[in-house]
């Protein structure tokens, strides 16, 4: 799958409290969460992010709380993909489980400026910065997680698993 979009660059250690502050966690409605996405990192972000845009994070993107509301808010805001040097553990797992594409690619993330246009090829494993004319190889998705993705995420995988039970 190829994704293409305008990038929004953030710094290192963007935690899930910045992605979706706890004051908005009294709902699980994706649209309501998306209205406040990245609010404590950039209060104007929800108003300017567009369909298909790509978030470029720094090291350790998504650290902190396990709240799945964070990838849900990002996805519901129309963001097609998050590119970062590496992700915090629970965020990484959550993104795969609920179907937000994420890509580990340090040099692409380091080089990017807000507004650059990225093309991300998830299957082939590369990121192109079309604005800067550079191509980067991204980290391979571990085979087990690729199987999860191919099955349509953890819930589809689990549905399959229980349907096979006697």
């Amino acid at each position, binding site marked *: 799958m190829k994704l293409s979009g305008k990038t929004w660059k953030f710094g290192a250690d963007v935690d899930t409290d910045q992605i979706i502050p706890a004051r908005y966690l009294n709902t*699980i409605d994706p649209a309501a969460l998306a209205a406040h996405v990245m609010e404590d990192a950039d209060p104007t972000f929800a108003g300017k992010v567009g369909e298909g845009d790509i978030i470029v994070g720094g090291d350790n993107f998504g650290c902190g*709380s396990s709240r799945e509301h964070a990838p849900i808010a990002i996805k519901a805001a129309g963001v097609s993909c998050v590119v970062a040097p590496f992700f915090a553990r629970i965020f990484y797992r959550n993104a795969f489980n609920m179907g937000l594409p994420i890509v580990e690619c340090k040099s692409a993330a380091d080089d990017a400026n807000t507004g650059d246009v990225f093309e991300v090829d998830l299957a082939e494993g590369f990121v192109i910065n079309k604005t800067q004319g550079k191509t980067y190889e991204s980290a391979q998705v571990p085979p087990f997680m690729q199987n999860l993705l191919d099955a349509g995420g*953890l819930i589809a995988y689990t549905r399959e698993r229980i349907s096979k039970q006697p």
Partner: protein
Amino acid sequence: MGMTITEKILAAHSGHETVVPGQIVDSDVDIALGNDITAPIAISRFAEAGADKVFDTKKVVLVPDHFAPNKDIASANQAKVMRNFAKNQKIENYFEVGRMGIEHALLPERNLTLPGDVIIGADSHTCTYGALGAFSTGVGSTDLAATMITGKIWFRVPESMKFIFRGVKKNRFISGKDLILYVIGKIGVSGALYRAMEFTGPMIDDASMDDRFALANMAVEAGAKNGIMKPDWKTEEFMNSQEISPGRDFTQYESDEDALYHSVYEFDGDDIDLQVAYPHLPSNTRPVSEATDVTIDQVVIGSCTNGRFHDLKVAEEILRGNKVAPGVRMIVIPATQKIYMRAMKEGLIETFIDAGAVVSTPTCGPCLGGHMGILAAGERCVATTNRNFIGRMGDPKSEVYLAGPAVAAASAITGVITDPTQVVTA
């Protein structure tokens, strides 16, 4: 070749003789935990998967603690979703307001979390139970849903990092919180990313269970998958002292001498001072002696990190006969009803109220900026909680300084961040 305690537990739960770091295992789960924030999403996913019942009504634990007692109508609706699910699914370990506590203090008190267990929770501080010698880690709501259905979860076996604490603590106020803040200050907020943090050495042997819980609790703040330590007589004593006996068999594991580690860190008690983590990362630590001229508006003593009895006791001893400084709001939150009751019977609550503090029912409340002590723009709080991220306790322009209960209590008296040895004799 030997295995670490983490590897042994994962091997035993996935039908393998041995496992190695990097291996993917399909592990049995002994306890799967959710709360009023994370369970509602898991319950939606549970339905989406077409499931109709949980894998084991004893092993799914649900605790309304984050925004409970319900802080607003929307939160009340979320809590109701979980309550109804617990009722319909006949979940035995659902703990209602009045009987609940902050989940990571409550479950060990109920002997639900046991040495050698694999425990997952849709809450990042689920790593707390590593203090009992369990493999215990935080996950998201979708993982919780899948585990509630199947009783299983996949893991990549983590590499282990060993942290050896030699010597003795410098003064009696040094707590498990200071040890873990010191480590996070050394290795950073992603210094243990995806790995197991194994804590060992004389200072761990000497530490109380409450200190061990605080230590394991914040492993996630270094990016770790789990924090763990080997169970010993204190673990057994802790379990035996609870009103409810463990309802299951359990196994105490320890690492082999020849187990392989990603890295080994050795620290000496002489080098570890009382710590304060400045905004806005838990790794932004410095000794309290270097935290000068920080005036504060609020002190919070509580949370899954430091709301246990001995945390309150240390604070109470410092506060006894003193008053909370004018202009400072001090909020004390016993982590469970049992801790609250003991604090009341032993006179702690009286000391807190005499000093001018407020004592709250158990709740995560202000730790995550939910309720019961939200900060205004420009306000500063010293908190015994676990995160000092931007906006964590309220306005994005407020500040949280993380510390142990002794520093928090001393700071409440003076109104500035204060070394407790300057207030009372160490």
